[in-house]
Each structure stands twice: as structure tokens, then as C-alpha cells.
């Protein structure tokens, strides 16, 4: 084959790769029953948390006796697209903050209420309610150069081998996505549905809980909730999933 023909063949093979996004939501790896459960708000167990979050949003709390709505008004307007932009830089601390961290900050500083617990029902419900307002919107990480170091730290953690099993996130979720670990299909690890209802957990959970889940499977010391590492990994994954649609509250097996 002459050189020109070779070139044509190579370009022809490369074109489809450019034309379509190879990224797939965890949704695409699920069976039709679980997909249907997510899509139907009356069947999606995550919607119960969204409703609970809505009640919390409108309830005055703390010494300030202010509700979230007292400042932010109608969440369907004010919170639209917010979850798609986190983690973001916190101007005050000059460090990256995740959405859950921002809610805690609001609770404590503006409502003068006790800090809600990470992975507790109050914080998960509020996160689910706020996240729901961005459903079907594209993940849009902030164009903030100050986040570069955080994302770089997240990228390094994603590729770092950890635990007694000596795995990295990338080895499974990049190199072996679509394969099966035992019975379980390995998804591409996109953070586009959190907090989500996991059938295995029988409850709603955060992305950071999912990290801990994976890491204990690797027999690694998990990143603590709200830690710099967990937020860095989250920031990296959100950047990696930029443009993909949020599904909050998603359902996953």
C-alpha cells in the first residue's frame, strides 16, 4: 500500500473517535430495570431525599432562625446549575470547597446552626435537593486558575497505586472500564449523579462515600470525608466529566 492510501486509512479510523464522545455515564452500564427506576421520579428512591431536602430548604433553623430560602429564594432558579460547578474556590479560605462543604459553611456561618454531619441525613438531603436543580445540565467546572493545583493533586491521586492490592483508580476505571470485576461491570467513574441512591447501600450516598467504598475494597486507608484529598479527587473527576449531564439523584447498582 502506498503512503497516501495509508494516510487515508489512518484518518478514516481516527475520525469516528473525534466525532463521538467515548465517555459513558454509569447509567449506560446499568440494566433496563435500574435505568427505569432512575428515570421515574415516583420509583427513584433518591427523590425521597430530594423532597426531604426541599422541606429543610424552607425551614428556618439555627440561632438566626433563617431558612435557606430566606436568602436564596426559589431554589429552582437560584440553585440551577450550582451543583454542576462544584468543587469551587472558597474565597475566604483560599482552598477548594465541595458542595457539601459549602452547605455546611452556610449552615454554620449564616444560619448559626450546628454543622451538619458529612454523610448524615440532613446534609445528604440538602445536597440532593440542590443537586436536583442541575439535573440534565452539563457539568461546568469553574474556569478558575486557582483550582489548577487541586485538580493536579486529584489527577495524581487518581493514578496513584494504593492499598494492599496496589491498584490505582485509573487501572480499573480508565484501562479496564467496560470489563467485569467478578460480576460487576466497571464504569468509567464519572461523578455525574451524586448524591445518588445505591442499591447495594440501600441508601443515598455521596461521591466521597463511593471513594471510601472503592478504597476499602483496595484495602487502602480511605480519604476522610471532606479532606483535601477527597475534594481534590472530586475536582479532578468533575473536570474529566466536563460537559456530561448531571443525573442527580441517580440510581446505581
Amino acid at each position, binding site marked *: 500500500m502506498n503512503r497516501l492510501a495509508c494516510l487515508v486509512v489512518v484518518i478514516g479510523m481516527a475520525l469516528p473517535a473525534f466525532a463521538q464522545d467515548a465517555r459513558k455515564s454509569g447509567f449506560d452500564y446499568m440494566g433496563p430495570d435500574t435505568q427505569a427506576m432512575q428515570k421515574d421520579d415516583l420509583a427513584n428512591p433518591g427523590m425521597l431525599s430530594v423532597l426531604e431536602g426541599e422541606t429543610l430548604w424552607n425551614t428556618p433553623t439555627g440561632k438566626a432562625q433563617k431558612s435557606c430560602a430566606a436568602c436564596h429564594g426559589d431554589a429552582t432558579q437560584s440553585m440551577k446549575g450550582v451543583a454542576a460547578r462544584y468543587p469551587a474556590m472558597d474565597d475566604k479560605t483560599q482552598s477548594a470547597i465541595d458542595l457539601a462543604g459549602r452547605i455546611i459553611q452556610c449552615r454554620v456561618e449564616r444560619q448559626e446552626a450546628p454543622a451538619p454531619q458529612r454523610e448524615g441525613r440532613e446534609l445528604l438531603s440538602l445536597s440532593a435537593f440542590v443537586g436536583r436543580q442541575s439535573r440534565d445540565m452539563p457539568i461546568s467546572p469553574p474556569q478558575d486558575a486557582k483550582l489548577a493545583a487541586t485538580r493536579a493533586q486529584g489527577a495524581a491521586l487518581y493514578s*496513584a*497505586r*494504593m*492499598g*494492599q*492490592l*496496589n*491498584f490505582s483508580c485509573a*487501572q*480499573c476505571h480508565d*484501562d*479496564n472500564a467496560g*470489563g*467485569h*470485576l*467478578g*460480576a460487576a461491570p*466497571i464504569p468509567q467513574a464519572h461523578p455525574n449523579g451524586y448524591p445518588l441512591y445505591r442499591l447495594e447501600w440501600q441508601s443515598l450516598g455521596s461521591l466521597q462515600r463511593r471513594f471510601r467504598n472503592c*478504597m*476499602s475494597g483496595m*484495602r*487502602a*486507608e*480511605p480519604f476522610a470525608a471532606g479532606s483535601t484529598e477527597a475534594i481534590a479527587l472530586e475536582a479532578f473527576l468533575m473536570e474529566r466529566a466536563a460537559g456530561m449531564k448531571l443525573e442527580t439523584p441517580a440510581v446505581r447498582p
Partner: protein
Amino acid sequence: MWRLLGLLAVLVSFDASAQTLVPYRIENGAITQSLTGVKGDAAKGRAIVVERQKGLCLLCHSGPFPEERFQGDLAPSLAGTGSRMSEGEIRLRMVDSTKVNEKTIMPPYYRSEGLERVAANYKAKTLLNAQEIEDVIAFLVSLKDDTQK
């Protein structure tokens, strides 16, 4: 590559304060010497291979285990391992597969150091002990027929 490994022929010894590991010698891409000197028990080895919390093998590998559902597909089938590799080559891959391929996904089954963020329960412990490794090797060596996938 093998020759280089052979030349380097590392004698590995570990910190005695951690779990004391049996020293071993890598030569020509293999560890020919048994870790224990006690012949492995293939039946015990098979039990370890299929035990998901112990050997973990079937999370990634499939093999001639008709009774086992949900075998992984991230790694080659274990069927015919004994035809493809020598006992010493299998031993090296069990002990620390990164010595063969730095980027391998296979966990090092007999290494307790140079690992990051190991959970407290597993710190300074190997995935399997030396005799368990020998049992698994005895079983894998016995898997001769490459046709039974």
C-alpha cells in the same frame, strides 16, 4: 529483559519488625526455589483461588471452575497456566507480578512494603502467606489443558 533480571538477581529481605518474609531469589524471570520447602497442596490451592475474600483471583481471572459464577474478565483465563509457564515463573508472578510488568493490575501476593496508604488491618501483611502461595502454585501448575477455557 529476563537476562537483566537474572543479572540483578535480587535477594529480598524485609524489615524484621514487620511480618517476616521468606527471602527469595529472582533469576531469569523466575523464582525456582519453593518459599517454604514444603510441597504445595493443589486442593488447598484451588480452594484459595476460588475464595473471593482470600485469593481474590476470580475477581479478575476466569478459569476451569464450572461451579463458580461471576468470574472476572480483566485478566487471562487461568486455564492452561501450567502449560504456558514454569513453576518458577508462576511463583514470581504470584509473589510480585510488578517484577514482570511494572504496570500490571495484578496485586503482589507476597509483598508488604513499598505499598501506599495500606489500611491499618492489612499493614505489613501479605495477601497470602508463603505456604498458601505454594499451595496456589501447586494448583496452577496442575492446570495443563489449554483447551478447557
